[in-house]
């Protein structure tokens, strides 16, 4: 009866752990993809000289959070705009460059959460006309991801405590039921280790079962959810690359099993130790 409650709690613990782990891992993956894109674009005041652009570039390059800086000349900006947006209508513009004043720096960042800071700094620079934040989603995702991380940590810690408490109760009841047998064994000269071993073994088995069940559940749920999301939001497929179940499980399985065995061992060992003195 108690074993059932114990397995259920450990399962819940590992299940939530697996769930949050999958979500967090996918989130950070998406964030990383977003991060690898252009974070900030800097446009210059009209009629700025090449030397000044050069100087601004050197200033920006000194910032720690900047991983890469690319200068895009007005001609290049126009070319890429034409390529991406105009297609066959290109010719109607002739040789005019409507983006004559739109030469810019594309800035790549190694830590997207520093974006706000960087933008503030860039706007304060002499000769900068406009700063364009291109990847707001990424910063938002990062904070959401961190929130999920903290909340899940909290819940998991509580469940962890409950699991250990329940294991410890299960073992304590087992010991009470078999108190007489234990007494007999001890009178014959059985060591604490021999008497304790079955209880610790029971705890570890409960922990293992408790960890395995949710892993199986997560395996199927994850596949279904990924399939559903990919179908439902097919447009976003290029943007949202989900991690494969293998990528998730390569870390999750060992961690979850160690967690289960750890809970089982800790709960049962400490209890057996406490209740089996003499």
């Amino acid at each position, binding site marked *: 009866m108690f074993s059932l409650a114990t397995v259920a709690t450990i399962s819940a613990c590992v299940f939530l752990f697996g769930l949050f782990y999958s979500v967090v891992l996918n989130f950070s993956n998406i964030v990383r993809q977003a991060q690898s894109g252009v974070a900030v674009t800097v446009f210059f005041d009209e009629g700025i000289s090449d030397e000044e652009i050069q100087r601004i570039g050197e200033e920006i390059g000194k910032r720690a959070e900047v991983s890469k800086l690319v200068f895009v000349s007005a001609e290049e900006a126009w070319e890429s705009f034409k390529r991406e947006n105009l297609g066959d209508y290109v010719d109607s513009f002739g040789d005019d460059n409507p983006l004559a004043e739109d030469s810019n720096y594309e800035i790549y960042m190694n830590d997207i959460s520093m974006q706000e800071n960087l933008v503030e700094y860039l706007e304060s620079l002499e000769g900068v006309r406009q700063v364009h934040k291109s990847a707001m989603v990424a910063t938002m995702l990062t904070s959401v991801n961190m929130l999920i991380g903290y909340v899940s940590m909290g819940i998991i810690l509580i469940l962890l405590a409950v699991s250990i408490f329940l294991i410890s109760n299960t073992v304590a009841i087992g010991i009470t039921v078999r108190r*007489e*047998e234990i007494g*007999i064994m*001890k*009178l*014959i*000269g059985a*060591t604490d280790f*021999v008497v304790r071993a079955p209880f610790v073994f029971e705890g570890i088995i409960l922990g293992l079962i408790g960890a395995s069940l949710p892993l199986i559940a997560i395996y199927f749920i994850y596949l279904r959810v990924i399939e559903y999301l990919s179908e439902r939001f097919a447009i976003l497929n290029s943007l949202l690359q989900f991690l494969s179940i293998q990528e998730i499980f390569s870390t999750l399985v060992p961690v979850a099993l160690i967690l289960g065995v750890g809970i089982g061992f800790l709960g049962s060992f400490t209890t057996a130790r406490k209740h089996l003195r*003499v």
Partner: protein
Amino acid sequence: MIILEDVKKTYSTGAPALNNISLHIEKGEFVFIVGDSGSGKSTLIKLLLRELTPTSGRIIVNHTDVVKLRHRKIPRYRRGLGVVFQDFRLLKDRNVYENVAFAQRVIAVPPRLIRKNVPSVLSLVGLAEKYKSKPRELSGGEQQRVALARAIINDPPILLADEPTGNLDPKNSWEIMKLLDQINHGGTTVLVVTHNREIVNAMRKRVITMKKGVIVSDQKKGGYIDED
């Protein structure tokens, strides 16, 4: 072999169960301990088994200072003592063979030897055929013989028995006592707590009589001393 010096045991409640007892038992002796209910006989056995520690005094068993014994040394110490109780204390969910074999497993006897030793000791106590039975399928006398087999299979130098015939009829009581005597002839020191007047009087062994926590008489080849 067994030495008690000024041993006192006071439980948290009431008067001392043992009051400054001194006692020497030599190797190879057979000793009866008799006395009224509550005179402290079981307390004495528990002290020897290190189930309890004395309030004061010294206990030396087999050259071991039992009082100073460290917790993790207790199992090894107990392996030198065979024990038998009134209520048999067999492992209920294991059969006769397993109960006896357990004592050998505790001292890590190789399985090959266990398979040889258990049947031989079971036939010594006359239970060779019942090795597969569970304790509840056995009579009291049979259960006590299983307990005895378990107590002697490791050849302990000392055998302690607390009212081993307390739950048995006269015929079974005699059989157990004869087995104890036989074991004693093999060189084991045997200490038997009993209320069985007839057997004590017939066997002419050393008899220690206790009353209210003290030894009131200690006779060689003695008899059961009447209360009134």
